[in-house]
């Protein structure tokens, strides 16, 4: 580390942890569109948080406000406990990687990475040294002299990441850095980002609309919809204990089954299961059940028939047509699923794991509804279940 960069902010992270970031009641409207609506999120020092939500939910807007590239209509951003609203973007010490390729085309990879240090008046030799070190960190040691046009998309995003890391930012902001890359490169770089975070421990906000990315990378996932925070928690909690219908629908696959709720439990498919916090507690409800929380056994007078068996490696997805004509998805290990084939009469039931119950009725356009209409269940949705 050069003396020039070893300032107070650098020292704040000397123990390997970063600074905390708090978003407090952020609002931002573009004309009639409410991009952010009272968004409040508390990010611990050194934490890796993913903002997850559908396209247009305000993720980029939130990130831009943290970076100082946009202003909130109201609300505060606190970094290390200080309100930074008045600080312009170039004095916030945040490393940002953008959704679009953003390397400076007239500079080599080395000069791109060294740019932030140059702005901080770090001497040339120290700059070069740091640039090569960070390029090594992102696995591009031999690429320092390449221009952006001479690199693949994945390599460019790595350089962009290196450029953001080189200034030893207080907070690292990643706006869907992988979305322009193909699946294989995306997977590699995703693992790399996780590794680098473990290595340097900078507080990181990772924006994505890809649930798999969010769930595999983040310490905590903040699910956002229409500019509002739906739920924030560790990936397992988000997946297993969704608080709202939106979260349950957006993450993984869910079956929608009719049930009757009473005294903190709900009766669904002849089984009584506990209710999750946030559920509708009494009366007729729609119960949201994950495919892996379903279970089928062969039975001649059962409540449904197998409609289709689709093999997905170690697991199988069974589509079961209930006597009520509803279609449900059931996930089971492939070894168990071999006994079933289309047309077999079965008894479908629900395992005794807590479920979310919501007001009855179909959510138009929801993922569960998609399962009904789309005979070839979309592969990425299926992956996410596994």
């Amino acid at each position: 580390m050069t003396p020039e960069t070893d300032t107070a902010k650098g020292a704040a992270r000397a123990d390997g942890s970063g600074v905390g970031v708090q978003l407090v009641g952020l609002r931002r409207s573009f004309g009639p569109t409410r991009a952010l609506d009272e968004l409040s999120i508390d990010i611990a020092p050194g934490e890796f948080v993913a903002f997850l939500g559908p396209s247009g939910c305000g993720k980029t807007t939130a990130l831009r406000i943290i970076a100082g590239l946009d202003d909130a209509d109201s609300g505060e951003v606190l970094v290390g406990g200080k309100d930074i609203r008045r600080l312009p973007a170039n004095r916030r010490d945040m490393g940002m990687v953008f959704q679009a390729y953003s390397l400076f085309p007239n500079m080599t990879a080395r000069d791109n990475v060294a740019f932030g240090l140059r702005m901080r008046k770090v001497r040339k030799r120290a700059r070069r040294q740091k640039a090569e070190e960070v390029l090594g960190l992102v696995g591009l040691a031999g690429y320092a002299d390449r221009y952006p046009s001479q690199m693949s998309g994945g390599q460019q995003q790595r350089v962009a990441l290196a450029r953001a890391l080189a200034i030893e930012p207080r907070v690292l902001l990643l706006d869907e850095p992988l979305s322009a890359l193909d699946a294989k490169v995306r997977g590699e770089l995703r693992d790399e980002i996780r590794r680098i975070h473990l290595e340097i421990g900078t507080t990181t906000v990772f924006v994505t609309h890809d649930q798999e990315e969010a769930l595999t990378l983040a310490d905590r996932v903040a699910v956002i919809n229409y500019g509002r925070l739906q739920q924030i928690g560790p990936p397992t909690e988000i997946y297993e204990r969704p608080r709202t219908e939106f979260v349950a629908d957006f993450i993984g696959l869910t079956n929608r089954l009719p049930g009757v709720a009473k005294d903190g439990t709900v009766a669904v498919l002849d089984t009584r299961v506990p209710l999750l916090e946030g559920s509708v507690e009494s009366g007729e409800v729609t119960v949201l059940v994950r495919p892996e929380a379903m279970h089928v056994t062969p039975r001649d007078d059962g409540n449904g028939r197998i409609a289709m068996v689709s093999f997905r490696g170690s697991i199988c997805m069974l589509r079961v047509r209930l006597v009520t004509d509803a279609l449900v998805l059931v996930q089971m290990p492939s070894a168990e699923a071999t006994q079933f084939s289309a047309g077999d009469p079965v008894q479908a039931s629900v395992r005794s794991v807590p479920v979310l119950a919501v007001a009855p009725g179909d959510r138009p356009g929801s993922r569960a509804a998609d399962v009904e209409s789309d005979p070839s269940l979309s592969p990425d949705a299926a992956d996410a279940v596994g």
Partner: protein
Amino acid sequence: MTARASSIGRRSLLRNVLRWVIFVVVGGYLLIPLVAMLEFSTRETPTAMAWKRTALGWKGIADNPSVMSAIVLSLELAALTVVVMLFLLAPTMVWVHLRVPKMRRVIEFISLLPLTIPAIVIVVGLAPVYSRLMPVIGQSPLVLTFIYVVLVLPYAYRSIDASLRSIDIETLAQAARGLGASWLQVFLRIVVPSIRAGLLSAAVLSIALVLGEFTISSLLVYDTLQVIVNQVGQDNAQVAVAVSLAALLFGFVLLFIVSTVGAGRRRAARATAIEAGLEEGDLYE
């Protein structure tokens, strides 16, 4: 198999022939007038074709003081116009692009406006302004710069705009801001190098336009290159043609330099240069 191979061979032969025919026709169309100018300007006896050559016409350029001073004046005007144009237009356009994108249409409209206004209208409109300003800014013909800057606006605007659009300037600027650059640093270190090709072609178009401008300077009675060429042409056609040819060649050299320097390392930059090169065609319409 072989039948198809030979048919492919025939097709590519045909394509080659066609390519050459087009090349020769276009080349001839562009070169013959130049060769004719060279031929005429070096004739021994201006009234008849003959093989005897003379350099008198070309020597006439150097010998004629008004030609030399006109060349100097026009070059000065061209340089001034480029400088003023770049200093006015580039920062404005970048600022509008980055900070007030809503104004983009307005700026575009204003910049393209001079295209629709005939030179004579500009002169008639500006003559009173100039006569007022004369006592203040002096008699120097360099005041033509003000009109020329307006005149080159549409062409310069188009080249700069093309290169601004060919890169994601907003994201680049935001990235640079996030890394600690002030707006001035963003402009000088990121934007200008990224749109270098566009700036160069704007400069070349402006130079070409100023060197070729006749109507306005003639009407306002300033002795710029074209005005003098016209005058000289009335008593010595050979010198006039020699000057014209020299001006043309000068323009070509300039274009060549810019397209090799400006094409740069980047494909995007090259694309802008080509686009700008195409717009060059507008000039001679």
